[in-house]
């Protein structure tokens, strides 16, 4: 009796929600980036690699310049390059996006692991990390405490969600972006290059994934890089994109759900084996995908 009450209060404590926001952020950022490429009609599974590179180069920049913001800048630069490289192969040279995505992921693991061994022979921790927001008045309002003391990128993500939503659904450019994926020839005959929109989407995705990676290493882990630290978040982000039908707001909510279960998993480690709790986010991902398939089937039935 007593034990179950403990589990319950542990799960629904302020700490869980704080952790939820923190863990949801990298997935959310990548998912918003993935929404861009998804709208442009590119199946982008290369987000995993883009996040990992963002995470590493964030730490590297932070270490070299002894400034977290320099790290952030280097991560962004690498993100732009990764996006350009992806677009070059997928859009310009029409390679198979699935293969290129896989290649990017594999390349990212190799590159970051190799460079990490070179630059950080011991361990890559303790580098300057991104600051946290600290507004004293938030602590005094019950319930709002959880949104205080978060890394700056958590807050930036909220702004990005709104901007991305405005961009996709409320600006002419968003219409072009969606048309470039849904009916590229239509856009072309209207006199706008669908390829250009795909290039832009790839670069935006690169930038957002780099931010996701930078949050992971410079924010969440406070200046630490570990091998393969993206740990499938790119794939979970991809699941969020599909789940949210590439709607940035819904993708954020899907990422929050993921964050919530990751937080629970971490919290439950005191009660259950961590091998089991670590499974929770991935199980949720599977459930999400099953839901997507069921939804699609239902719609198909309705149309028939």
């Amino acid at each position, binding site marked *: 009796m007593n034990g179950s009450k403990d589990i319950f209060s542990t799960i629904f404590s302020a700490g869980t929600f704080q952790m939820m926001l923190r863990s949801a952020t990298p997935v959310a950022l990548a998912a918003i980036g993935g929404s861009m490429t998804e709208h442009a009609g590119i199946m982008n599974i290369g987000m995993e690699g883009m996040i990992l590179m963002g995470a590493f180069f964030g730490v590297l920049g932070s270490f070299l310049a002894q400034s977290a913001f320099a790290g952030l800048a280097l991560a962004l630069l690498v993100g732009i390059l990764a996006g350009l490289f992806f677009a070059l192969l997928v859009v310009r040279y029409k390679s198979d996006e699935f293969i290129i995505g896989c290649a990017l992921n594999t390349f990212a693991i190799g590159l970051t692991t190799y460079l990490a061994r070179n630059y950080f022979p011991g361990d890559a921790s303790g580098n300057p990390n991104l600051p946290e927001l600290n507004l004293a008045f938030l602590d005094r309002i019950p319930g709002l405490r959880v949104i205080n003391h978060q890394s700056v990128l958590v807050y930036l993500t909220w702004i990005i969600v709104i901007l991305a939503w*405005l961009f996709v659904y*409320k*600006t*002419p450019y*968003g*219409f*072009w972006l*969606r*048309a470039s994926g*849904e*009916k590229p*020839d*239509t*856009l*072309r*005959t*209207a*006199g*706008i290059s669908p390829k250009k929109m795909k290039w832009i989407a790839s670069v935006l995705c690169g930038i957002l994934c780099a931010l996701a990676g930078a949050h992971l290493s410079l924010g969440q882990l406070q200046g630490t890089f570990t091998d393969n630290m993206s740990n499938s978040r790119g794939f979970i982000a991809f699941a969020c994109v599909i789940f949210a039908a590439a709607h940035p707001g819904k993708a954020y909510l899907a990422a929050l759900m993921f964050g919530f279960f990751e937080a629970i998993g971490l919290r439950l480690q005191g009660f259950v084996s961590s091998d089991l709790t670590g499974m929770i986010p991935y199980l949720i991902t599977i459930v999400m995908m099953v839901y997507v398939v069921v939804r699609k089937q239902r719609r198909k039935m309705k149309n028939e």
Partner: protein
Amino acid sequence: MKQNEAVVRFEHISMQFPGVLANDDICLEIRKGEVFALIGENGAGKSTLMNILYGLQKPSAGALWIKGKRVEEFDPRIVIDQGVGMVHQHFMLVPSFTVAQNIVLSREPRKHKIFFDNAAAEEAVRKLERDYGLTVPESTPVEEISVGLQQRVEILKALCKGAEILILDEPTAVLTPQETEELFTVIRGIVREKDMTVIIITHKLDEVMAISDRVGVMRKGRLVGVHETRDVDTRMLASLMVGRPVLFEELERSGTPGAPALRVEKLCVSDQRGLPAVRGLSLELRAGEILGIAAIEGNGQSELIEAITGLIPIRSGRVEVLGKDVTGREPGEIREAGLAHVPEDRLATGLSGAATVAENLLVGKQREPRFNRFRIHQDRRAVRSYAEEVYERYDIRGAGVDALAGEMSGGNMQKVVIAREFSFDTPVLIISQPTRGVDVGAIEFIHSRVMEKRNQGAAILLSSADLDEVFRLSDRIITLFEGEITGSFRAGEIGKEELGLYMTGSRRQGGTAE
């Protein structure tokens, strides 16, 4: 501007594609305020010429003038600015966008410089609707409106961009007769009242006569004639299109029906949803005769044919080919028994678009010893020379036997399917929709081939949505309604109108329907 002034001038335009000269030295003037029809067989180069005018393709040689200005850069954006609009055969609309969002695409009204102004877009569309007397549901997603309305949206889209010269690429291909009539009313209206120039690409000659002022005929990439529509008739246009007189006269029949070759007894078949599609149908087909099936789409004719050829399971009943029971056999075994099949959908089941013409012609014969060395190694030279011979014999026109089948025009794809199936020389032929979406010249060719097979003694079961075709080819005609035979007639025994009564089930042989 006065009448007869040239708004578009093609000067010695040529377009070379790999292996095909799509446009060959075209000189043509389009006059302001006219409806100009551009006709030609599939693959004659009409669409290429119009794609050049719309800036989608740059000609390999020649000059294009629009409203007295030479086009230097071939880019839709620039050409659109000069007043050219195009309604493509396959609509260029984004399904999830609303009508208004589609119409203003690329020229969206904005607020605060960066935001899409949906209200202004819808207002602009309403203004267009008033100006041109065309109504559309401006805030409905395009995927929810009918094909006829989608076309109207396409026309408004062109007008919204200030089009004065409107190109319509096969606009009636997807329309019902009523929608076609409405479209023509719209065209007449915009030409008369708004001084627009309309270029309409088609191969339906009745429509040329109904709507156009002048007509240009293309054949094998060349412009072979430009005429005032009132000076020509459909027969003359058909001959110009094909390059020789198109007779469409009685096809010669010889021989008398022989022994039964295909027998179907009390056949019952279900459709995809498991509902009865063919209900206890029996028929007998003799060697040397063509039995035509006349039925409205969805009355069991497709299932009947797929069941006979072994593509879908049979519930009950019996199918015999040359006296051999093939009920429930695999398609391959049924073919072995002496049957070949031209399926109704050439792209889905008739051929593989991603394979070459030669490969498509070979299918079914690939195991024959003459194409194989040591039984395992394909003899490419033998395949190639065989394919080339068939290609020649069936008058297939395209970029040769090594080109991808999917890149050919519809008429030529159909010829590939027919060539392959006919070359099995089977006693029984099942032919479904032999000329759907095929041009006049190819239709005539295919018909004469079918008749030739009949005269050589093949038993042919023909199903076609084109009643004229059924009448022209068949020795006997049966009507199907809801999976049952409602009437059986000898050729010449019944007229089209009367046949329609049997096709709709309002009359049945052996007493009227309930």
